[in-house]
Structure formats: structure tokens, C-alpha cells
């Protein structure tokens, strides 16, 4: 007997459980937008090249267009709808607002989800391709504009708001560092 091509599964998104039946071809991106009405996550290229669909999976930024929904069962998914604390915006959201880190706004949910993870990755001491010396003895790299640009390079902005985006990420990283 050929294997079933659909499954009933439970997705955990922003702390809520959703049970649904999906065709295995459904990406996490399409499940979020079309089935769960969480349309904050955007579809750009649908090929893993633009970053508009970035969400956090078990706290790690991922492109939801290349993630099958059926393979996301059992993982904790956070979308742009889930990053604020009630009425209080996430520091990265606030920094994007304060510093005009967008123009049309289409890439913004992905930019913000990605930036939240960038700040955490940097705080955990992860090097990047912009890091001169990756050896642990060299210590963690400073989060310079060059480091931010490299770490955020998976998120394209068609409006070209990069200058403000880099400033917003730097501001948010500073405010989170001060809060920690």
C-alpha cells in the first residue's frame, strides 16, 4: 500500500496548539498563513532566498518556506505575532519603529524575527563570516555594523532600508544588553 500523503498533526505556534490535517506538500509558511490565519509571516520568493518568511523554530531563525509543516510537528514555532509581550513591543520591534527600519514593511516581520535571533546568536558568542578570527581564544566579536550586515544578509529588503535596519538592530542589541 502506498504511504498516506497527508497527516493529522499538532503545531505549536506562539504557545498555542493547533491540530490540523495537512497534505505533506504543505510548507510551514503556507500552513501558518492559509490554515492558521497567521499572515504576519510573509511569502516572498518561496525559495529560501529572501528571508521574508523567517520564523523562530525552537528559538532558531529558519525560513518557513523550506520547512515542511509535517516536519515542524513537535517544535516550538514563534512568528512575528508572538514576539511582543502583550501590548509591550519586543525591543527589536520598538527599535525598527523608532529608527524607521522599513519602508513598505513587507520584509519587516522576517527582518525582525531574524534580528531577534541575530542578537541571541551574537550574545552566545557565535562568530560570523565577518569575524576576523573565529578561534574561541580571540573572544566574541563586537556587534559592529559590518557584523550586523553579514548576519542579516539572509533578509533582503526591496526598498533598500538597510541603513536604518542596521541601526535598529544595533540599538536593540544595546538595549537588550543593558537590560540583561
Amino acid at each position, binding site marked *: 500500500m502506498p504511504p498516506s500523503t497527508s497527516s493529522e498533526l499538532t503545531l505549536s505556534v506562539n504557545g498555542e496548539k493547533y491540530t490540523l490535517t495537512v497534505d505533506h506538500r504543505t510548507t510551514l509558511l503556507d500552513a501558518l498563513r492559509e490554515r492558521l490565519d497567521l499572515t504576519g509571516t510573509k511569502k516572498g520568493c518561496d525559495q529560501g532566498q529572501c528571508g521574508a518568511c523567517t520564523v523562530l523554530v525552537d528559538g532558531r531563525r529558519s525560513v518557513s518556506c523550506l520547512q515542511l509543516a509535517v*516536519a515542524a510537528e513537535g517544535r516550538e514555532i514563534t512568528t512575528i505575532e508572538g514576539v511582543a509581550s502583550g501590548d509591550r513591543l519586543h525591543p527589536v520591534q520598538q527599535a525598527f519603529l523608532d529608527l524607521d527600519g522599513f519602508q513598505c514593511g513587507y520584509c519587516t516581520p522576517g527582518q525582525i524575527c531574524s534580528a531577534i535571533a541575530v542578537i541571541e546568536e551574537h550574545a552566545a558568542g557565535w562568530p560570523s*563570516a565577518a569575524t576576523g578570527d573565529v578561534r574561541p581564544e580571540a573572544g566574541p566579536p563586537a556587534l559592529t555594523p559590518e557584523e550586523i550586515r553579514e548576519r542579516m544578509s539572509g533578509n533582503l529588503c526591496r526598498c533598500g532600508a538597510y541603513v536604518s535596519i542596521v541601526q535598529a538592530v544595533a540599538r536593540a542589541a544595546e538595549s537588550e544588553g543593558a537590560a540583561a
Partner: protein
Amino acid sequence: MREFGYRRAHDVSGAVALLDGDPDARFLGGGTNLVDLMKTGVERPALLVDVRELPLDRVEPAAGGGLRIGATVTNSDLAAHPEVRRRYPALAQAVLAGASGQLRNMATVGGNLLQRTRCGYFADVHSPCNKRAPGTGCPAVTGEHHNHAVLGASGHCVATHPSDMGVALAAFDAVVSYETADGPGEVPLADFYLPVGETPHRETALPPGALITGVTLPPVPTAANSRYRKVRERASYAFAIGSVAAALDVRDGLVHDVRLAFGAVASRPWRARAAERVLTGAPANAENFAAAADAELAAARPLPHNGYKVTLMRNLVVAVLSELAEEAAR
């Protein structure tokens, strides 16, 4: 996209059994390449066996002093690992040079080795392609090939292997471990990718139905002084047009040990053994670095639009080895 079944494996033998050698089934790791190829119709599996939850997500000391990297270790975790960064910095740099933060969080070591070429004709199911549809021809030879192979290619296929990680693994003599229904096996990375010849659709030496379980790096003291340098058409988030992984040990001005591998110039990560032979025992200077590059690149057979790669690789070798020699002298 063709409809497909989905199974999630929880142990290695279970994963191999679920796949059951079915040529229409595929192991699913991070999916960053496979899901993309399924969307475009290049891959049309009837069954996916999800291996992301297998207990192969550790980087551990290996017997004999090397490092054992599990097949489901993500690119991110590999590049962030302190022992990788300390003992094989070029490997961390190579991984960090590839893709984006999002993709590195998803992509696995096993999947990285098995990712497919980014040749545009391979990706377009409406084009002929000997790799995707054997016997249909290779439009790249007379068409768009500015980023295609200059070493080890054939008239049947001039595609390159896109991995950055693999270039560093090739330089450091990595060995790939796998599991089949008949038990475990291993193959050196040097023999992992098959020569192109007349069969570009046959890419690796893995037995049918085999699951990659990990990669073992032997101890390579020279690798502590190593570097990965990637050249691409924009500053970040692009495939290489040429890259070099190099490690250098200089004693009394002479090359005591050197490791050199090239990326984006062949159907596999290209270990530059001819260059290594020229350099070993020779004075560590720019003139000899250039002579070593020339010895390796003598075998290059560029096409009309990718001859620049030969010059590029020569310059890269000289630049990277010169930097490493300077650091070794400090």
C-alpha cells in the same frame, strides 16, 4: 509537487529500514536543498524519511585524537563549536561563508555533502541535463557556464559542487561514515564524489539506500593555522565563484606541511595534491606559492566564459598562503 509519504525516524537502523533502498525515497534533513528541488520538480520522491531527530547531533572527540561530527549537526552548531574553531578554523570559516543564518540553522552536515549543483540547467526541468536526465545533453558546455568547472569536468557535465564546508573537509582528510541494511561503512571524502566522466548523474560512492551518519576529522595539527577564503559576486549570501581552504606549517622558512583544497572549480571539493607536493619542503614564499598553484591548475580546461577562474584561483592560493605564512612567522 508530486504527493509523497512522510515518516519520521528515531534511530539509525530504523531510518535505513524505512527507506528500504527505495530509489523513489529520500532522507530529509534540513530540507533547504531537497524541498527547494521538490518545488521545482527536479526531485520527485514518493516518500520522505525525516532523519532530523536521529541521535547524530553531536560533535565529539574521535578515537585517535580527531573530531567526530554527527550527520544531523546543523551548519550553525558546527561553525559555533569551540573545538572546530580552535583546531580547524578553516572549517568554521567555510561553513560561515555559506548560505544565510536561517539556512545554516536548518541545514545538516549530511545534507550539505549531498546537496546538488546550482547549475541553472540542472535546476530547470525544461532544459536538457545529463545529470538530471541522463543522455539528454549538456547545454552549459556551449551556453551559460561562467561559474562552471575548470577542473575534472567532462563534455557530459561541467557543473560544480556548491559546498563550502566540503572544501575544508577535503583539505583535512575527512572520512564519511554511513549505515546500510548490511551494516556500517566508511569512505574517505577524497573518494566520496565520483569522477564525472560519462555518468554525471552518478554523484557519490554511497551504496544505494545508505544513510550518512557522520564525518570524522583526523587530528591535523597544521589545521590550527588554517583559513578559508571565498570569492563571490556579492559580499555575502552567494555561492562561490572560487574558494580556497588552506593550512600551513612553516619551520625555518621551509614548508613543513601544507593542506590545500579548492571550491567552485570542479564537480567535487578539489584537493590540490599537486600543489601540496610542489610546496612541501620548499621555501615558503610567494614565488613558490604561485608555482604550486600553477602545478595544480596545469590540468585546468576552462571554457570560453570561465577562464577567469584559473587566474582567480592562482591569486587566491598566493594570497591565502602568504597570509598563513605571515601568521606562522608571528
